[in-house]
């Protein structure tokens, strides 16, 4: 077993950087994105190998699913905005050739490139040195966490760290997500969805089957998070994937969600988290110091609300812009398909 597993290790160790290298070296952007998706998959296997099931769950949902969908849609949007005759494949290469004749490029580059390479090597040496020099006490903070587990109200160590010991970190992190959604909403609006093409019946039934299952699994992950791998982030990521699937299928129900509801769902998690943090102070502890007896319930409540918000945030980030008011445009749905970026067509 062990010798076979070390083959497994070596395979992964070699495949990851190679994949990264090919990804950045490939002339075709689309291929780079697909390689990136496979990299996410291999990363997830790596997390499993390194005994980090929580991280593997999150990576499985985000790295292998959501990020890929994000990049693929962005690629399409970028491509649609470019000249119509230019193809996706090698678009970038041609652009580069068009903009700078190779001879001139060669002349101007070497010095800057050499400097950058030097900096890179310097960084690497520094990093490798610090990696070797850093001494980790055996178990790290593991024993400390194990010692205090009785007070947290949960059985999963990672969840205890996330929501109890370092609750303020997670609070701020949820705020970061919220900010990201705000940023994306203030940047762009979702534009008119594409003119409807012939709908794929298979897609509709796929959505009908998968989306409820995804929601159930998300709930399961949040629930199981108190005792095993799982939790708000993983549940939220799966929920976000369900949202993305709905957006992809362009389901009419999604378009009709009132904007206010969406906004409240976005705010729900951060707000509840913040309120409960303050409530803890009011009850008579420090910030985020839950009462001992009911700590588990507090955590579950916060986690459920956060999972909903994370899911909605991820879906909104995928939609990539502020939803239109339903009154403003009767046709354009509010979480209408991202493929809005096609004014090239309208103009």
């Amino acid at each position, binding site marked *: 077993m062990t010798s*076979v597993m070390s083959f497994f290790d070596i395979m992964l160790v070699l495949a990851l950087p190679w994949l990264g290298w090919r990804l950045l070296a490939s002339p075709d952007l689309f*291929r780079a994105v697909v*390689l990136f998706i496979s990299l996410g998959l291999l990363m997830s296997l790596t997390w499993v190998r390194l005994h980090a099931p929580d991280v593997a769950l999150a990576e499985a949902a985000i790295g292998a699913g959501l990020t890929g969908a994000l990049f693929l849609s962005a690629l399409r949007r970028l491509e649609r905005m470019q000249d119509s005759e230019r193809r996706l494949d090698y678009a970038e290469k041609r652009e580069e050739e068009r903009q700078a004749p190779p001879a001139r490029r060669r002349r101007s580059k070497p010095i800057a490139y050499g400097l950058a390479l030097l900096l890179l090597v310097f960084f690497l040496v520094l990093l490798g040195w610090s990696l070797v020099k850093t001494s980790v006490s055996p178990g790290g903070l593991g024993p400390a966490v194990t010692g205090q587990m009785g007070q947290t109200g949960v059985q999963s160590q990672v969840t205890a760290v996330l929501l109890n010991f370092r609750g303020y970190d997670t609070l701020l992190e949820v705020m970061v997500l919220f900010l990201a959604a705000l940023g994306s909403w203030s940047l762009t609006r979702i534009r008119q969805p594409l003119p409807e093409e012939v709908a794929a019946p298979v897609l509709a039934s796929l959505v009908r089957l998968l989306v409820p299952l995804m929601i159930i699994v998300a709930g399961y992950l949040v629930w199981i998070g108190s005792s095993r791998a799982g939790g708000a982030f993983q549940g939220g990521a799966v929920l976000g994937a369900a949202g993305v699937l709905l957006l992809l299928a362009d389901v009419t129900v999604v378009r009709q969600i009132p904007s206010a509801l969406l906004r409240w769902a976005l705010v729900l998690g951060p707000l509840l988290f913040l309120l409960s943090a303050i409530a803890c102070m009011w009850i008579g502890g420090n910030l985020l110091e839950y009462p001992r007896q009911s700590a588990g319930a507090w955590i579950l409540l916060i986690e459920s609300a956060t999972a909903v918000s994370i899911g909605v945030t991820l879906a909104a980030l995928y939609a990539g812009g502020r939803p239109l008011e339903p009154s403003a445009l009767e046709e354009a749905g509010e979480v209408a398909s991202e493929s809005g970026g096609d004014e090239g067509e309208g103009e």
Partner: protein
Amino acid sequence: MSWLYSTAALCLLCAIVAGLWRILRGPTAADSMLAAQLFGTCGVAILLLLSKGLNWVVLLDIALVFALLAALAAVAFALRTWGGTER
């Protein structure tokens, strides 16, 4: 008997790494996407085998999430990147 699971998992990992070649080569974009799709399934199988081999139930949850989301990227590709309106 646990060598069975780890060896099988190793074979599947080899299959993934070999399949990377198709992504790099694939004449059309869809070929690369298909390879990624195959990786998803291989990943599920690896996780299932490891969960038995290491006797670790959590891996079944991860495999479940994999299986749920495997279709997402391919659907996004077929509808957004490649399909959709004519180009």
